[in-house]
């Protein structure tokens, strides 16, 4: 059996390991754009913040490919898939034949449209190379502008604040992380960031960058000039899907997969940030571009590719963030668009430096936000993920002393 994997991120790596577990001798080829050893993408924000050195990014040995008997085609890009001919097309016209294919190409930063993007010290934040360049640009930098208040924008701003820069964050909603948390939690996070020196401008976008070689200012759509020595763009991500033949493999926002991670083309699978599948809490298809999802999906895709039928229960959004003195944990659907049909239970708030919000639908938990005392968050996630009917009164579930033991009777 010849397995080909497009993408050497954690989804591709986890899939290769799962295949190797079941098939000691199968042919495995990984086509990967990045030549760096498999590494932790989330950790690049710790490198920017200075809490971890760049050297700690790899999470597999430099001999990973040899140890697992994988043929690596690194520094190469897939540009097309011949579905009927069972071949992957590379940029240099090489064709790689496959019996089973995994698309694990991840996501790219959502591009910004503005003038002056080619000035130095304007960055996206996705790869170890970006992190290296950002750290180099810190030297002598005093003021930074961060575009976007989602996960990556937030992490960029947090890292730059920790480096002692004066940071201005431009966001479209009223508080950061509005896709991840509800308004109460969002305001607590915002206050904490502002308390540590962050400047926030709401409802503002950037029209152009100015500078002479290097960026010196960002110009907003309202015409305001924001002086800066460094810009990080974090406006979300888009699945890498340009090389996928849409007529033959169904692509929505991401590549659509079933519970076995198989695309609409038999024998072709997708996993990780590029894949779109049913979200357990929302009950509809969703792209949950998250590390634990990429690991789990990659692993299950690999098992299925090696012939063991394993079902993936669906994806689930979840996140943990440390924001100076706040620990924030969020899972599932925390802000249902229509509140009708949902029950929301909350305790705490800004004054208590402690907050919990649970979202229930009938007797199922579908979402939770915790600020501080987050240790039991995994128990709540497990209740959501396994769709376990809640017999405990939600008031007990939301109380500070809640623990796993209370679910047993």
């Amino acid at each position, binding site marked *: 059996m010849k397995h080909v994997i497009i993408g050497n991120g954690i989804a591709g790596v986890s899939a290769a390991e799962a295949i190797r577990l079941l098939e000691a001798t199968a042919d495995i080829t990984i086509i990967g754009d990045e030549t760096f050893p498999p590494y932790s993408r989330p950790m690049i924000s710790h490198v920017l913040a200075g809490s971890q050195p760049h050297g700690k990014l790899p999470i597999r040995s430099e001999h990973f490919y040899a140890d697992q008997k994988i043929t690596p085609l690194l520094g190469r890009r897939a540009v097309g898939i011949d579905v009927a001919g069972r071949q992957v097309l590379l940029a240099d016209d090489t064709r790689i034949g496959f019996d089973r294919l995994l698309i694990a190409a991840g996501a790219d930063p959502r591009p910004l449209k503005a003038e002056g993007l080619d000035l130095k010290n304007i960055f996206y934040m996705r790869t170890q190379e970006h992190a290296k360049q950002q750290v180099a640009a810190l030297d002598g930098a005093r003021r930074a502008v961060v575009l976007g208040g989602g996960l990556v924008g937030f992490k960029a701003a947090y890292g730059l604040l920790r480096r002692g820069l004066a940071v201005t964050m431009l966001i479209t909603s009223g508080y950061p992380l509005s896709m991840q948390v509800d308004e109460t939690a969002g305001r607590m996070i915002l206050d904490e960031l502002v308390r540590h020196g962050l400047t926030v401008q709401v409802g503002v976008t950037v029209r152009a960058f100015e500078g002479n070689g290097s960026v010196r200012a960002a110009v907003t759509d309202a015409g305001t000039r924001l002086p800066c020595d460094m810009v990080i763009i974090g406006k979300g991500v888009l699945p890498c899907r340009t090389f996928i033949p849409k007529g033959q493999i169904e692509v929505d926002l991401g590549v659509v997969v079933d519970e076995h991670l198989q695309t609409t083309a038999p024998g072709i699978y997708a996993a990780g940030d590029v894949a779109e599948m049913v979200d357990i809490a929302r009950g509809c298809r969703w792209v949950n571009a998250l590390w634990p999802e990429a690991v789990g999906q990659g692993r299950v895709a690999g098992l299925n590719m090696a012939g063991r039928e394993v079902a993936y229960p669906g994806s689930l959004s979840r996140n943990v963030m440390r924001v100076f003195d706040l620990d924030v944990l969020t899972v599932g659907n925390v802000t249902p668009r229509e509140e009708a049909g949902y029950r929301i239970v909350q305790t705490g708030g800004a004054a208590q430096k402690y907050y919990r919000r649970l979202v229930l639908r009938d007797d199922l938990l579908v979402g939770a936000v915790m600020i501080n005392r987050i240790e039991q968050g*995994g128990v709540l996630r497990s209740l959501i993920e396994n769709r376990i009917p809640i017999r405990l009164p939600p008031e007990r579930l939301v109380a500070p002393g809640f623990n796993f*033991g209370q679910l047993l009777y």
Partner: protein
Amino acid sequence: MKQVVVHPERCVGCMQCMLACATAHSRSLTLFAAVQETPQPKPRIHVGAGRFNEGFPNRCRHCDPAPCQMACLAGAIYRRDGAGTVMINPDRCINCASCAMACPYGVIRFHEDPLGPAGHAIAVKCDNCSARVAKGQIPACVEICKAGALTYEEMDAAMRRKTRDVSRSMSTDADQPAIPAGVALLKTIKQSEIALSGS
């Protein structure tokens, strides 16, 4: 291979296991000296209040596959070869708490630890007392527990006994699972108290 087996129905909530665990994961290894150490050694087993306020000893299950390992952003969680013990490498952990989100039992804590890097909080959880076991001792929590709520057994023997207990408790004619009389009484009292107070 022997493992710690938890029998929550026997727990009297005395929290002796927590003290013993903290001591076993201190630098000095004695309770008296451990309380004066900085950072303070902390327990890796947690006795929480159950539904009826009864004690519930909660510790890492060393799951296979381990959800915490799959969620770890830094590749810090690994399985010790042979023993099946899920371990956290204190030098790789970045204290991101991604594992707290993953663990279905809520057994991971985050703090500076005597056995970790100085001045940094890290993820800390049960390590099956691997240091003690290597010296021929049994896990500290089992050694101290006088209620029989924590035992150290060959896993298949423990499994067989659990199954037997469950099947016994299902059939009305048979004996109840062997809970010490005093503990059963304590639990009954607590449960009826709670029922009376209407919560």
